[in-house]
Structure formats: structure tokens, C-alpha cells
């Protein structure tokens, strides 16, 4: 599972950082940095983060273009 965050949309509410701190972190006060590939044991926290993002900026999914 891979992650991409629309950082135009992200406003640094940091809900994802609270819910999946092993995947999302703030670099400084509001610059979001994240693991682009979700570790196996982090899939549930990441799904909660996706759902909780106030601006719905997080997309997760399988690798694009794979298996075609």
C-alpha cells in the first residue's frame, strides 16, 4: 500500500500525525513528511488517518500501473 498526500490541500492539522505517528511526521511546525510506502503493521493506523484528515488530502492504494 502506497500513500500520496495532496500537500496543496494539507493545512497542517496533523490528525494523521496523531493517528499514525510511525508514518506521518511534521518537519517543523507544519510541513508534513510521510512514508510513501506503508509498513505492513501500519495499515490500520493509516486508514484511520485517511478517514480523519479534515481536508481529505490523503490517498492510499496499491501501486499504480501494477499488474497491467
Amino acid at each position: 500500500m502506497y500513500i500520496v498526500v495532496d500537500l496543496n490541500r494539507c493545512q497542517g492539522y496533523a490528525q494523521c500525525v496523531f493517528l499514525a505517528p510511525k508514518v506521518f511526521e511534521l518537519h517543523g511546525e507544519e510541513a508534513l513528511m510521510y512514508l510513501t510506502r506503508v509498513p505492513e503493521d501500519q495499515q490500520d493506523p493509516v486508514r484511520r488517518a485517511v478517514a480523519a484528515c479534515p481536508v481529505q488530502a490523503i490517498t492510499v492504494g496499491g501501486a499504480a500501473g501494477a499488474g497491467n
Partner: protein
Amino acid sequence: MPGTDRPGRIVVVGASLAGLRAAEALRDNGFTGELTLVGEEDRPPYDRPPLSKAVLLGRVRAADVTLPARRAVDARWRLGVRAEGVDLTHRTVLLAGGERLPYDRLLIATGTRARPWPHPGEAALHGVLALRTAADAALLSGLLDAGPRRVLVIGAGFTGSEIASACRGRGLDVTVVERGPAPLVGALGGTLGAFAAALQRAHGVDLRCGVTVTSLQGRDGRLVGAELSDGGRIEADVAVVCLGAVRNTEWLDGSGLAAGPRGLACDAGCRAFDMYGIVTDDVFVAGDVARFPHPLFEYQLLSLEHWGNAVAQAEVAAHNMISEGPRRRPHLAVPAFWSSQFGLNIKSVGVPTFSDRVVIAQGSPAERRLVAVYGYRGRVTAAVSVNRAKSLEYYERLIESAAPFPPDPATTDRTVAPTPVPSDVPDPRQLSHGPTVALTGHLPDRRGLALVRRES
């Protein structure tokens, strides 16, 4: 075919962010015909913004920046294959190796590549590289892991500044050489350029502005240093060439499309122009390679290298590729981009270079939290925030509504109206690329255009 006026064959040339999102949108919108994506790189679409940030900091591997699929896409992926031409008359794309792909609708999303160092011998030295692809990022990341004595960054635009930030984040010595008066000045103008210069120096970057690198020097095939235009010399093991991007349009030479060094021109519905300026109806463009008119900016043709523009424009192009005239949509998104560097989050809406004045409407450079608002002839055209991202949506509304500039002090955190200063942006109309076509013939029905040799 519900929701689809146009079945048939669609070919997408360019399999990065814009090509991928277009393919997904085509299927979302009910396109059930044949879909083929052609990509020069041999890996599936990936996300580039982390390459100059998380990857260089060692948090993310370059191999792991693959983009997530929004949905399953029934398509043929032709990866690791270059497209070498288009035949508009016979509606085919020519691939390297001679294969011809027939299309009914074509989307061109070939993006940009890094502008190479102009001296091939110097560019071939071990330790000299540009940063554009995941392979570049893997290479640079490995060079940084090896603990170079000093990294030289040539060019202080966003990519160069982010690389310098990552180097300092890893405790590496870094020299940044910038031809202009300050970092980021080409994109954000003088006020934020001065801020960026102070920021870099405060983080220990050896920043040299108003200077160019005149030569890179090697020993036994490895970079050892550089000579500067001010007579200075520096020793460095790694040099990252950050001289901007070149649009991937050469493969369209001779196609009859309006393609040149500034990109492929199109209308607001993403339909490409042919070289006469006549709109085509079966060739579409999206992403960094597109030049499109934006009504908010006097219909000037904009070429944007923005992640969000690639996504939004791809969605409009996909919709219009399978919709008849009255159902087509314009690409009207307000341009926006972000950068993170030296622990700060920099975000922009509008077009900062489309301005004559700028004012710090909130915060201050000293606090490292601010919003700079840009105006052109008395209306708001852009805003840039530093660690004040939540404010930006408000200014986007001002840009959309052509609100007066400077903004009403009651809407800023000022007690008195702040004083605008000249924005000191490069003139976007300056002639910097030379002509790409010439008029030929004399009789009205024999007037034509010929491609003139491009500048490299």
C-alpha cells in the same frame, strides 16, 4: 456507453502523474475503449516531490515513491518505451523501434526533464548530477550517504533550495551558487528572495548570489571542485545541477503541433494547437508540458510545473477527450504549489510572477511566519505563506474574485495598512527562448510555417 460520446482508442504519451490521473479519470468517466499508456521510464508512475525532501533525508527510499492507484485502470502500459513522433494525418504515435500506435484521441503528458550541465565532459564527472527522476534521487542519496566533504548546489530555485536544506539536515557542508540576487527570486520575487537568503545562511548554507559556476573540475574522472565567476574556487565532491527544467517536446518536432521550448500550447479545454494556432480536436495536453491560457491572468499562456496542476489538468483533459462540445469543461484551477525547506512550509496560490507589487499582510520574516500578498495593477493575483498554510484559502478567494490590492487591512493582522513594495519578479513576457517557427510563402493560400532550429 453511458456518459461517453467517444469510444475508440486513446493513447496517453507520458506515464507519470498527469498520465496516470488522466487514465483513471477516463475510466471514471465511463470510457470503455482501448487505453494505452506509453512511458519512457521503465517503472510505474511515481511521486516526484519526495525525491528532493524525504528521500534525500534518508526517510524514504527512492524505490518506494510509487504513486497509489485511485482505482483499477484497464489499460496497456508500455513502459520503458520512448515515443518518437506523432502523425496527425494518420493518427498514429511512432514508438522507438518503429512500432506505430493508432489512436482516435491522443493525450500528450510528456512533462519535463532536468536541464543538463552545459559542458558534457564536466557533466560526466563522477559526483555531478541533476535531480529529476527516482534514479537520480537514488544516486544522489547514495552520494550523500558516503559523506562528501562538501556539496555544491548550482541554482537556488525550489529544487536547489530543498537539496541544500536536506544536506544541512544531514549535517553536510553545502555551497549554493545562484546567478540571481537571491534564492527563489525567479518564482517569488525580491521580498521572499531576501527572506530565503537569510534563512539559508541562518542554517549554515554557504550561499553565493550573483555568481555563476564557470567550470567544474575533476581528477581521475571524479569531481573535485568548481571555479566561480567572481574568481572564487570551492572544493566539492558532489555537484547537483539545479538549472530548471526543459520541456519534453523535441519528439513533436515536425508533427505540426505548436510545440517548442516553452511547451505545447493548448486551449483552456486542453486541446492542443497546431503550429498555425488552430485548435485540434483529437490531441490533448496536460501537465508540465502544457501551455494554456488562464482567464485570471489575462489569458496569457501559462506553463506550470506544479503537482496540483498536473492532476487538475489531466482530469479536465480526460473529461473533454470523451465529451462533445457543450459538455466540455475549462481548466480554471487557481495555480498552487508548495515547498518545504529548512523546517518551513512554503505554499503559494495564484501566480506570484504575475505581479507588480507585494506586501507582507500577516506575520513577518523575523517570526518566520508570514503571508506575502502579490498584486498586479491594483488587484490581488497571488499569495505565498510561510508556516501559515491555513490562511491561504482566504487569499485564494481574493485572487478568484479579483479583489483590490493591497488587501483591506481589516482582513490582515495589521492595525495600519501595510506598505506594498515592488515585487521584483522577472518579467514573464521577456523573450528568453528565441523564435521556434518562421513564416514562409507569399500568396495568401501559400502562407505557411517552418520550424526553426531550437535553442538547446
